[in-house]
Structures are given as structure tokens and as C-alpha cells.
């Protein structure tokens, strides 16, 4: 259990919402790509938003 908690904190850190949003953005990128739509722009759009919200929550 401690092992799992260590790796969780190592990779995800203390902002689970940010992590969930990043995973959702990657999933949406995969969804768009599967539909044949250009999807490269989605992560560069999502990451700054996630970062901004995460920073606001931390301050």
C-alpha cells in the first residue's frame, strides 16, 4: 500500500484534478485522432488551462 502511495504521489502529486484533466485531454486527443480530425492543438490548449487552474488552486 505504501509502495502504491509513493508512486501515486511521485507521478500525480498533490493536484488530482489537474492530473484527471490532463488524462481527459489526452483521451480527447485520441478520440479526435481516431475520427480523422487534426488533434495536435488540443494538448497545447489544455495544458496552459490546467496549469493556470492548478496554480490558482495552490495560491
Amino acid at each position: 500500500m505504501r509502495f502504491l502511495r509513493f508512486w501515486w504521489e511521485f507521478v500525480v502529486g498533490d493536484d488530482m484534478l489537474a492530473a484527471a484533466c490532463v488524462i481527459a485531454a489526452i483521451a480527447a486527443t485520441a478520440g479526435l485522432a481516431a475520427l480523422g480530425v487534426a488533434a495536435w492543438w488540443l494538448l497545447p490548449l489544455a495544458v496552459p488551462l490546467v496549469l493556470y487552474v492548478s496554480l490558482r488552486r495552490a495560491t
Partner: protein
Amino acid sequence: MSAVFLVLSAFLASAVEMVEALTIVLAAGLTRGWRSSLTGLAAAVIVLAAIVAALGPALTVVPLDALRLVVGALLLLFGLQWLRKAILRASGRKALHDEDAIFARELAEARVAEHIERAGIDWYGFTLSFKGVLLEGLEVAFIVLTFGSTQGSIPLAAAGAAGAVLLVAGVGVAVRAPLARVPENTMKFAVGLMLTTFGIFWSAEGAGAHWPGSDAALPGVLAFVCVVSALLVLALRTPRMETA
């Protein structure tokens, strides 16, 4: 270009982590004896080498797209943690990392800890050194494995990391003091930028997206992440906190 980013990222990340590990090894060595501290250091290095040796070849047999998706997602999550802390530090919302202060704290704690000797080795000194090097080194191992496997060159990433380890160890042996003058906060910011950039690039590729210009888009993504981070620092800027 990717190879340069690869070596540079592994070098910077390793240098930052090794500066932190050096502080702990020095504190353990000066207070609890060098034998215990260096034994802990050696044990941690062996464990880290075993992790890289065991996982490295395993990662090379995973299909590249799947690897880039998983590794990209992990790097993005990991990189955002680094970047978030770096932006908070640069904007004055979080105390700057100060090796001198950390060294003083480690020294004070190590001096009052109970002395338990096993096989001629002080257990506290060994454990302090072992845990410090292992935990700091795990981040380096993670970066070397993920960057190296995704770029198809774990040895190149390992070379970047090894260069940093040798440099920090060499300087550490020469000065026998924490490397407080290393611009650690700036380096941490750079590593956060690199990790986030590679995370965005590889996770999008792994998810099936195609970057305009293929690999040539990577510097563009890096420039974009740099600009966004600089704007966030400006937006959050507040009077500087004390270092800690």
C-alpha cells in the same frame, strides 16, 4: 535536435537531483561518519542501477506508439508538478529552494539522532544517505528511462545523466560543502519546461495526433510552454518569500 533535448534534459534533471542528494550525503557524512554515509550512497546507486538495467530492456520491446502515449502522459503529469512548483517559486508564492538552509536542517537533525551501530555502520547515517540518494535518484532514473526509451536511446539519456552525476560528485568532493551557488531554482524551472514539452509532444503523438512538421514541431512546443510559463509567473508575481 531531439538528441540535444534528450541529453540536455537528462543532464539538467540529474544535476538538480544530484545537488540535493549531495547535500544529504554531506550532512550524513559530517555528522554520522563517512563510512556510513558512503555505504548508504553506494547501496542506493546499486539499487538505482538495477532498476534501470531491469526496466530499460523491458521498455524497448513495447510498441513505440503505446510507449509514447504512456510515457508522454506520465511525463506530462510529472512535468506539470515541476513546472507548477517552479512557477510558484519564480512568482514569489513559494519559498526558493536553498541548499544551505536544507544542509543546516539536516545537520541539526542528524546530530541529535540516536546512535545505533550495526556491522560497524551507523544506521541513521546509512539510512539518511541511502534514502536521500535513492529518492532523488529515482526521479533521474524515471527521466532517463522514459526519455531514453521513447527516443530509442536509453544510453544517450544515461550519458547525459552520468555527466551530471560525475560533475556534481567531482565538485562536491572538491568543495565538501553544499552546492548552494548552483542556480538550482532556474535549473528546476528548465527541467519542468522540458518535461512538460516532451509530455505534450509524445502523449499527443502516442494518442494518434500528427504534429505539423513532425519532430520539427518540438522547439515550437518548447517555445510555447516557455511563453505560457513566463506569462503565468508575471500574472502570479508577488513580493519574494523567504528562502527555505
